[in-house]
Each structure stands twice: as C-alpha cells, then as structure tokens.
C-alpha cells in the first residue's frame, strides 16, 4: 500500500515536471477562486465598504500571482525530478507577501487569540487552501492539455491514413499508366515491326541483322524498362500536422468521461473546508467539519452506488447532472440535520447559517474540477490507446498498399525481364542458327518457332495489364513448391487444419504465405546451407503464424544474408529471425 502511494506520488511528480509545474494558465481559474475565498472568509472585516472589499479580494490574489510568476523560472529550471516538491515550497514562499499584506490590511493580531483568527492561523489555513487548489489545477490543466494534443495527433493520424490511401492509389495508378503507355507505345510496336521483318527476311544476312537488332532491343529498351520497374519506389509520405483538438470538443470529451470518485471529492472538501472553517469560526469548528464530512461521505457513497447503476447507460450529461444533484441534496439534508442539533453548539449558529449556500456550491465546484481532472486523465489514457491503434492501422494500410504495388511491379518485371526478354533472346538465337542452317525442313521449323515466339511476346505485352487469373489451389501450389525443392532440401510441414483452411479461403494471404515459404526455403538452403527445414503453420491469437526452423552449421554464413526477409517483411505483420548455436528460426505472422 505504501509503495503504491509512493509510486503514485512519483508519477504525479513526473506529471508536473519542469515547466508543467508552473503553467501560468492555472491563474485563469485561481484568480477568481482565490478572490471568492477571500470574500467568503474576510468580507465581514469591511462591513458595508464594498469598494474596499472588492479591492481586497482582487489585489491580494494579483500580488500572489505576481510573486508566483516571478519565482516560476526557479521551479521550471529544476527539470523533471522533484519539480512538484520544489513547486509546493516555492508556491508557499510566493504566497507569503500576499498573506502578510492580508494580515496587515485586516489588522489581524499576531498573538494567538481564543475567540478570533490570528495571523499565523490565517496564513497556515490560507496556504493549505491555496496549495490544494494550485496542485489540483496544475494536474487538471496538464492532463487536459495533453489530452488535447493527443486528440489532435489522433485526428492527424486518421487524416494521414486517408491521405496515404489516396496518394498511393494515385501513384500506383499513375505508375501503371506510364508503364502501360511505354509498353503500348514503344515495346509492342517494336516487337510487331520485328515480326514483320522476320516474315520478310530471306537471306542469312537479313536474319543475322535482325538477330542483332533483337539483341540490341533486349539490351536497351526491355532491360531499361524492367530496371525502371524493379527500382521503383512505392513509398508515400505525408506531412503530419501536430494540431490540437478544439477546446470545446476536448471539454465535451472530458465531461463524457469525468466521473470523479466520491473519496476524492470528500478529501478535497476536507482540505478546503477545514481551513476555511478554522479561519471563519476558529478551531472549535474542526470536529464538526470532520464529523459532518465523514458522515456525508458515507451517505454519498451509498447513494452514489445506486446513482451509478441507474445512469450507467444514460448519456454523460445525465450522469454529470445527477452527480451534482446528489451532492447538493445530501449536503442540504446534512445541514438540516446539523441545524436540528444547533442547541448543542449555539456559538456556531452563524457559521452553520453560512453553509446553506456555501457547502453545495463548494461541493459542486470540487465535483466539476475533479470531473475535469479525472476525465482528462481517462481521456488521455483512452486517446493513447486509440492513437496506438490508429498508428497500427496506418502501418497496416501502408504495408498492404506497398505490398500490392510491389506485387504488381514484380509481376511486370517477371513478364518483361523473364518471359518477353527470354523469348526475344531465344528468337535471336534461333535466327543465328537459322542463318547457318542448311536443312530446309529444319530452317522452316526454326522460322516458324521464332515467329511463334514473337507472337507470344506480343500477346504477353498486350495482356500485361489484364486481370490476373485466380490462385491455383493452395494444395497444388504447395505440392509444386515442395516438388521443385526435392533433392536439394528435405522439407517437413506441420499445419493445423484451421490455418490451411484460412489460406484456402483467402487468395491474397495464400499468395503471401507461399511467397514467404519460397523465400524461407531459399534462405535456408542458399545461405545457411541447410539440408532440411521444418515448417509449422498455425493460428495463434487471431494471427497466422509461420515458423521455419533449419539446422545451422556454425561455420556457415548467417541466413539473413539474402534479401528474402525484406520481401517477407513487406507482406507479413511481423518477421523475426533467431539464430541459435545449431539452428535458425524464421517466424512470420499475418493478422487476419
């Protein structure tokens, strides 16, 4: 319990670090509050002299504020550690001039008096009240401001998400349009021309020249375009603003959550009411204040339980208003009871009369301030969680779009670099062979095959941007992958039925996981020189989890050498590589 309290105090101390411990904004609240308290406690000293009363109630808080602002640099220079303690000490010091002025102005005696307030008593009680409010207000302002900033950031993140989506979609579409134009306006017509020239070529010299042109076309245009595709950057960055949520919107959000604890309200009331009572009617009031607040707390606690149950599903404003009504009602009923017992303490009748309006007002005021403080802190917590979730959503969206772009580029690169360029190179080779071929039948066959290759290249270029055919079944793809690695590395797969079904139901996920499997196997074989690989595929915590483990010879290079991990990281939610002494494990997860 003690350590929890200490931890809580340390947390508060960190909350009010440096400049936060002297936030001047608190004076918007403190000036009227201190003026009000001065009025309540000391207006009687001036009788009917309203001008002097007003001067007294405004000038002293202003002096207090001026002294505080003068000492503020000393506090803010303290840095994050111990700021609160220093603040409380210096705040006491800053209050002293106004307190001395108060005693002098009111002519309060420095010698202890049994029946009226004396100077030391006034100063101590005033310091307690002032420090309580100052500390409370600093917390409120700090949490409220932090909430505003967090909410603003949250809004910026949400805007960024929308911007990323728009920018990436637009860039993807522009890139693909440019590539489409280059393929349609440059590559396809050239291939058509080459085919026409092939049909007209008769001599060996023509065929060899054509072969040379095809080679040159491959080297320059096709290679340049495939390089352009492979080196493209799909990244989109947006400028994120760190704006703040509007004051009214933040206040509304704070009150939505503000439901201050009854214990906190009782403690605050005790801290403020006890010094006030001592100031007004001397120490004799203290037992009455403590007993009254204690009994009131027990009643409110009982009533509040029922109230919370009743308004649990009601709008926040209902909860807030019922809270105020409850406090006002209980305090009035309590005062009624106290009044019935007035004969027991006739000397306090005047003081009790004051409380009819003052007590409910003070309670409501504390309730509102506490509501702000607690609400702002809750809002801060809530917005931090939301911010983290939104950031994660931005990352996911960004990754998904990048992955789509990378997949489109990889497909086009493979088409141009692998298929079309391969066909053209084969045609060039065929024409070279054709030029030296003496058998008519073989020549005709080679010519026909070369023409077929060019026609196929044309068709592939024309269909480069067509919709892709659906994914072949996962079972078939996995069998093919395994078969194509047989004799090089022994692969064993353990999978849960749910995971396999998930792949079957989601074509995109299946494509990503199979690509990751291909990369993982290549990594294990090529870089770790593994001769066997164990793969586990399962579902854990709403994630598809792929674990690939292979033995590692310590003499061999680490299996992170390849670029495959980057490819997996682009599509997977998380990628982790662990290397033990004898084995290496690659773990990738995908969120559903």
């Amino acid at each position, binding site marked *: 319990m003690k350590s929890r309290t200490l931890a809580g105090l340390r947390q508060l101390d960190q909350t009010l670090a440096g400049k936060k411990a002297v936030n001047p904004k608190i004076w918007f609240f403190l000036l009227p509050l201190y003026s009000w308290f001065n009025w309540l406690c000391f207006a009687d000293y001036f009788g009917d002299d309203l001008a002097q009363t007003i001067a007294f109630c405004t000038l002293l808080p202003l002096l207090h504020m001026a002294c505080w602002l003068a000492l503020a640099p000393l506090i803010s220079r303290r840095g994050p550690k111990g700021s609160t303690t220093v603040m409380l000490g210096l705040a006491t010091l800053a209050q002293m001039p106004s307190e001395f002025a108060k005693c002098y102005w009111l002519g309060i005696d420095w010698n202890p008096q049994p029946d009226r307030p004396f100077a030391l008593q006034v100063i101590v009680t005033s310091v307690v009240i002032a420090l309580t409010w100052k500390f409370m207000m600093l917390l409120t302002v700090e949490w409220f401001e932090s909430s505003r900033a967090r909410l603003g950031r949250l809004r910026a993140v949400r805007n960024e998400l929308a911007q990323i989506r728009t920018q990436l979609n637009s860039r993807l579409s522009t890139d693909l349009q440019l590539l489409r134009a280059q393929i349609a306006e440059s590559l396809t017509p050239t291939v058509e021309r080459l085919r026409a020239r092939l049909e007209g070529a008769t001599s060996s010299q023509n065929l060899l020249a054509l072969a040379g042109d095809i080679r040159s076309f491959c080297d320059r245009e096709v290679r340049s375009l495939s390089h352009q595709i492979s080196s493209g950057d799909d990244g989109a960055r947006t400028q994120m603003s760190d704006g703040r949520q509007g004051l009214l919107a933040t206040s509304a959000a704070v009150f939505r959550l503000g439901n201050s604890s009854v214990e906190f309200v009782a403690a605050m009331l005790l801290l403020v009411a006890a010094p006030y009572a001592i100031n007004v009617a001397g120490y004799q009031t203290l037992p009455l204040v403590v007993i009254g607040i204690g009994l009131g707390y027990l009643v409110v606690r009982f009533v509040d339980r029922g109230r919370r149950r009743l308004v649990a599903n009601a709008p926040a404003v209902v909860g807030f208003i019922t809270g105020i009504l409850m406090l006002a009602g209980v305090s009035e009923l309590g005062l009624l009871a106290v009044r019935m017992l007035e004969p027991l303490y006739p000397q306090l009748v005047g003081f009790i009369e004051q409380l009819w309006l003052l007590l409910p007002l003070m309670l409501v005021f504390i309730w509102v301030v506490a509501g702000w403080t607690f609400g702002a802190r809750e809002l801060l917590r809530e917005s931090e969680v939301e911010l983290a979730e939104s950031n994660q959503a931005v990352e996911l969206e960004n990754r998904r779009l990048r992955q789509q772009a990378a997949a489109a580029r990889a497909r086009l690169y493979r088409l141009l670099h692998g298929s079309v360029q391969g*066909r053209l190179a084969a045609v060039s*080779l065929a024409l070279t062979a054709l030029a030296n071929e003496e058998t008519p039948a073989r020549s005709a066959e080679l010519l026909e095959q070369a023409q077929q290759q060019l026609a196929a290249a044309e068709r592939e270029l024309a269909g480069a941007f067509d919709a892709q055919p659906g994914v072949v079944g996962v079972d078939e793809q996995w069998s093919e*992958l395994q078969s194509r690695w047989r004799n090089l590395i022994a692969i064993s797969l353990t999978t849960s039925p749910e995971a396999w079904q998930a792949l079957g139901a989601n074509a995109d996920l299946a494509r990503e996981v199979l690509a990751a499997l291909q990369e993982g196997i290549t990594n294990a074989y090529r870089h770790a020189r593994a001769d066997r690989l164990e793969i586990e595929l399962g579902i854990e915590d709403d994630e598809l989890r792929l674990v690939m483990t292979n033995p590692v010879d310590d003499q061999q290079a680490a299996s992170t050498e390849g670029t495959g991990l980057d490819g997996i990281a682009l599509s997977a939610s998380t990628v982790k590589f662990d290397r033990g002494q004898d084995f290496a494990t690659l773990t990738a997860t995908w969120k559903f």
Partner: protein
Amino acid sequence: MLRILIVEDESFTRQLISNTLSQQGFEVRNFEDASTAIEAIESFEPHVVISDLDLGAFGASGIDLLQYVSRKFPWIGLVALTAHANPKLAAAGSLPEQVAYLVKSEISDLGQIGVAIRATLSNRTDQSTESTESTESTESTDEDQLVVSGLQAEALRMLASGMTNQAIADARGTSLRAVETLISRTYASLGLEREAGRNYRIEAVRLWQTGRVRVE
C-alpha cells in the same frame, strides 16, 4: 564425347541450345527444373551443367542448382545462362568463381556456348563470352596449349579440388586402380614424364589452373 546437362524452363530456348550442342558433337540431356536435373546427374555423369539462373517464381533456382552441383560434384563444369546484364551481380556472390556466364541477349553466335563449355572445363571462365572466332584464333596461335579428353579433364578438376585418388574412385564409382591408370594417362597427355623428385599432381593442377589445358 562430352556430356552436357541443360536446365532451362523456357522450352524453345532449351530445345534450341540442346540441338545446337548436339550438332556440335556433345551428348546432351535437358531438363525443365532443378530437382529433376539433380536426379539425372548421378546416372548421366555430365561433364558440364548449363543452367538458366531464373527457373520460375517457385522452387529452386539455377543459382541453387549450380551451388548444389559445385558442392556435391566439384569436378563438373558449370555454365550459367541469364538475362541479366551483369550476371555475377544476378548470382549475388552465391556461385563459385569457376562458373562461366552467358548473357542470353548477348549471344550473337551459338558457337559461344561450346566455347563457354570448354572454357569452364579448362577453368578459363573469364574468356567464356568471347566469340568463337577470337577463341579459335587464340587456340590456333597458342602452340603451348595441351590437349586432354573430357574424362581426363574431369580427373584434373577432381585433383584441383583437392580429392585423393581414393576419393575420385569413390566419386566416380570405379576402382582405385582404374583412377590411377586414368591419372597416369592424363600426366602423359600433359607431357609430364616420370622423374624422381617431381610432384606431378601439383604440376598437373598448376597447368589446369593456369589455363594451359584445352579439352577436346
């Protein structure tokens, strides 16, 4: 006759290279993917494996196949076919130094493939993409060039990789005596006559590694 194993996923190119090499007097077998090719290596015992580096999106690539062959059968010559302008960069340093590279779109003469095969067998991969004419002219003017058969070249590659006679016999599945005979004949072809105090093994390997040996 030199035995060549071709691995290329594009059927037209595969057939074209296969026919060309057959016409040039090589014994050729061709395959579409790495796994099937590996199954044939032990029975076919090729002198050289020619493989496209890119064998499709799924499965082992040509890099993996050539790496496998260089590890398990270090005496087999390796030729990499690729569409990349910088083939060594495409292999990303994963392949041994003795691999000869042929850039598909830069082959202006089918004779270049035969030259690359002979170059890899002679450990002269740096000359692999030169034209037939220039290589032939180099060969005709190089009177110091020593000529060995494909089988002898295989023995020389095994010696160069540090294998003992017993290891060569085990690898080839023959007797130790047969290997000793083969090596003696190889020394003779290289003009290394037995003299006391000379280490022919080292001299033969040095000749092989300095490119003084041509395979016929």
